[in-house]
């Protein structure tokens, strides 16, 4: 058997497929330049090729492929938001996510777990009821359940009333899922590259060339590139890159920290979120508990971890799962979240013609990867704002027409 395997390996009959083509030199001009080779940028390149036949695309990144917030999130996917605009948008994302593995012929390990948003106060119960009604109205599976049913569906939770914040109820969202975040980006990258899009890592955009109010190219550390359209999809660096185009955004960059525990035998199938306790947790396929909390108390361009964060998070974890008291944290990291005042993203046109932004993804970006890529591609290809994206335009701040999602943005920030 090992010899047969060796023979196959050395024989030329089954050549290994290179995941991505070798890096090439930059061309002097492209139709579209996408700044940021994370999930969102790569998804946009993929849908530009698949839906619109636009393949003269360069995806540029200062670092390595999908090494920013695409690699740093906690991989939760759900659509139980608060506003009808938000629910419609994220619901389309879920529909796209479900088919992604087959579409790519590449397993993104999409796993529907059921998502519980715990309520520990009357106010949180009220918000849960509100969200459940908005969700159901728009055809999203979502309901308010009480401790008896929580115990049946998620027996690992501590439902004792003898704690600081007893669990009074939960918003239950059965389609809530997790997926392998890196695989999502790699899948998009592979197909986009197959179609002719070029992915250039270690290529930093250092300037945006603007003539007569329209973007005509970008300056990089590898020279100038001319282009017709630019899409900026750089998460925590949104303000810095937008400034190159002379734009200011309603964004504050704030770190969001996360950590994982030792691998444990599976006891938690569900995704559990508590707004009041600032915790969200799920158990990965390897058995590690993937845990996150609210954003840091102040803005910072850094991915350092702090002891304050872990003390708070793990204290609350022990209220929900007291039997974890001796379990160790083995890894920690942080991402830079681009937080907006209304906890909704900013997508679409900017005052600079042909310069589009995809930003303001704060702590809710991973779950929107497919829909955002698809709809931003539509916007780039047609020059029209899709109805689904209209509520999330930059101009909403000047029209005082925000999309308030604070009540549904993972945990109370």
């Amino acid at each position: 058997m090992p010899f047969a395997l060796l023979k196959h390996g050395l024989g030329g009959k089954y050549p290994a497929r290179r995941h991505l083509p070798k890096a090439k030199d930059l061309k002097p001009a492209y139709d579209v330049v996408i700044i940021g080779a994370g999930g969102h940028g790569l998804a946009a390149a993929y849908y530009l090729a698949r839906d619109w036949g636009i393949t003269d695309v360069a995806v540029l990144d200062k670092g390595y492929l999908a090494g920013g917030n695409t690699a740093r999130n906690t991989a939760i996917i759900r659509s139980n938001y608060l506003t009808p605009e938000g629910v419609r948008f994220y619901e389309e994302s879920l529909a796209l996510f479900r088919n992604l593995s087959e579409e790519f012929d590449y397993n993104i390990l999409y796993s529907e777990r059921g998502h519980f948003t715990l309520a520990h106060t009357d106010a949180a119960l009220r918000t849960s009821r509100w969200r459940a009604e908005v969700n159901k109205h728009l055809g999203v599976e979502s309901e308010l359940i009480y401790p008896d049913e929580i115990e049946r569906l998620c027996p690992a939770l501590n439902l004792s009333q003898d704690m600081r914040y007893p669990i009074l109820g939960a918003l239950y969202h059965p389609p809530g899922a997790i997926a392998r975040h890196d695989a999502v980006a790699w899948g998009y990258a592979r197909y986009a590259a197959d179609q002719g899009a070029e992915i250039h890592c270690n290529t930093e955009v250092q300037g945006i060339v603007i003539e007569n109010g329209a973007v005509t190219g970008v300056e990089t550390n590898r020279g100038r590139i001319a282009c017709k359209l630019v899409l900026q999809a750089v998460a925590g660096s949104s303000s810095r890159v937008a400034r190159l185009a002379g734009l200011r955004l309603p964004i504050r960059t704030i770190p969001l920290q996360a950590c994982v525990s030792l691998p444990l035998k599976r006891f938690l199938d569900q995704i559990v979120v508590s707004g009041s306790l600032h915790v969200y947790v799920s158990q990965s396929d390897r058995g590690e508990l993937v845990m996150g909390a609210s954003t840091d108390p102040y803005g910072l361009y850094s991915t350092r971890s702090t002891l304050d964060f872990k003390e708070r998070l793990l204290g609350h974890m022990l209220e929900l799962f007291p039997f974890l008291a001796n379990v160790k944290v083995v890894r920690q990291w942080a991402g830079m979240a681009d937080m907006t005042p209304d906890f909704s993203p900013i997508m679409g046109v900017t005052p600079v013609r042909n310069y589009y932004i995809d930003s303001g993804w704060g702590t809710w970006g991973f779950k929107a990867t497919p829909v955002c890529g698809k709809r931003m591609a539509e916007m780039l290809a047609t020059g029209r704002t899709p109805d689904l994206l209209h509520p999330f335009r930059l101009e909403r701040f000047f029209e005082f027409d925000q999309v308030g999602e604070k009540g549904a943005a993972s945990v109370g920030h």
Partner: protein
Amino acid sequence: MKILNCPLNGPRNISEFAWGGEVKAMPDPVRCNDRAWADYVFLEANAAGVVREWWCHLATSYWFVAERNTVTDEVIRTYPASELFAERVQFAARDKPGPR
């Protein structure tokens, strides 16, 4: 725990403070148009580097100004707001009461 030096209370744990965001010049709320007001309320420089920002010591409700490096997370200096605002900022009164 990180320590912040409050100009009123001396060095205290940073958990006693709330971050108030960057110091911006407020336009005259009566005379400016909606766009200028939205700009003031929502848009941020969000700079990477040394910034000047508001902080509040929660226990004493004392607002002051800090200069902090948003890349290295070093606090360079904290000082009372009176260093920036020597005089009361006077905006013109509205001509007529009621909505504009």
